[in-house]
């Protein structure tokens, strides 16, 4: 019974709250595309002005992320991919779901360390996060790492949603699973596009101004 519930919780947390936070994060980032540096700061400040924001973060992000990530690593460890025998689309997605999960886990740990963790340490203010991102994505190597991490996270989110629908018995028949595949593929494309567009926007010089105060942080990052 433990296995059943722990897997169900893993599946649920991946969508609620993590999937929702993922989309929220995408919209916050996208405000940099729409409103520039000031628009991005407004979005960040709005998010942090939510009531009980500490608890929202704790129960809506940190704890679910920890559980989903650690249990997910265990699921990935338990799999024995057999693409050599079954070179099939669904089997590819099964394998990529596990690979992208591990990549996303490492990426998210690093990303949180550079942003939210530095805020918690008092090295950075929320207003300066755009500048932190500017410093990161201005370096080609780190930009590449970010692109890989983002694509992996977007795939894991979209494909995870597809298997969530099966695991909870929502899409049962082959037709429902095929239609949801297409919808999730569309979601993957949109989400990836929006995240990457925001990422490239952080390269704009207007975010540079924000980073001037952050020279001290470079030694940390």
């Amino acid at each position, binding site marked *: 019974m433990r296995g059943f519930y722990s897997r169900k919780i893993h599946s649920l947390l991946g969508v609620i709250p993590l999937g929702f936070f993922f989309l929220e994060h995408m919209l916050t980032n996208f405000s940099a595309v729409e409103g520039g540096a000031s628009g991005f700061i407004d979005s960040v400040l709005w998010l942090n002005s939510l009531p009980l924001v500490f608890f929202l973060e704790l129960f809506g992000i940190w704890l679910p992320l920890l559980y989903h990530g650690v249990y997910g690593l265990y699921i990935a460890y*338990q799999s024995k991919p057999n693409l050599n025998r*079954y070179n099939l689309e669904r089997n590819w997605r099964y394998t990529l779901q596990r690979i992208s999960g591990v990549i996303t886990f490492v990426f998210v740990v690093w990303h949180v360390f550079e942003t939210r963790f530095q805020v918690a340490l008092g090295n950075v203010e929320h207003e300066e996060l755009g500048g932190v991102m500017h410093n990161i994505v201005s370096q080609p190597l780190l930009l590449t790492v970010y692109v890989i991490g983002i694509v992996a996270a977007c795939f894991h989110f979209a494909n995870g949603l597809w298997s969530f629908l099966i695991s909870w018995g929502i899409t049962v028949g082959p037709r429902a699973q095929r239609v949801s595949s297409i919808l999730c593929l569309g979601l993957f494309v949109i989400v990836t596009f929006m995240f990457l567009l925001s990422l490239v926007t952080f390269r704009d010089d207007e975010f540079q101004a924000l980073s001037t105060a952050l020279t001290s942080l470079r030694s940390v990052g």
Partner: protein
Amino acid sequence: MAETAAAPKTVKFIITRQDNPESASYTEEFELAYRPGMNVISALMEIQRNPVNAKGDGTVPVCWESNCLEEVCGACSMVINGKPRQACAALIDQLEQPVRVEPMKTFPVVRDLVIDRTRMFNALKRVKAWIPIDGTYDLGPGPRMAEKKRQWAYELSKCMTCGVCLEACPNVNEKTDFIGPAAISQVRLFNAHPTGEMNADDRLEALMQDGGIDGCGNSQNCVRACPKGIPLTTSIAEINKQTTKHMFKRWLGV
């Protein structure tokens, strides 16, 4: 197709062998005369009749299991050219040569191509894949089954416990205790039966235990591999639905 060839045609086999459950496996090559319509079983019978390997050395005949020879018993499942399937239905004319034959190593290998599928039968016991109709008195006829339902349920009843879906599943391995697709589909079959339905919750509970339905990772190889074309992934999703409903019902005490 030309009926006669100038030189006598031969068929090459590379067979993975193992002397006992504990010993290491090794491969042995065989070269047999081609006969029209031959399949992997008839080739193995030929090796049994004349146990000489490709080098011309005498060897111990290859062990295998087979029974019905018409793809309904599931006994002769083995990995042929990388794909688990029934040897009796594996026609040489349709296979690439050399034909590689291995045991389905997801299961304990007894000897050569003979494997022990006990775990599958234990799984059927675990999920109570039967309909209890015995009583201390005549219980009378059960409720009737709608013809439409009978038609799709019949498809599920074609399962011959051959083990191909377990061999194809990346989540059935030594690191997990996942029950595998076959037993899950049988739960759907017996839960769909008007009399079997009366014990539906017992079967769902069994699949909610460790090693149950939560082991599925949606690679969906099983449905592509099943020699009987059983809609295994539909069964798994349907049982996902039933177990999820059962979980909430239990919580709410309905």
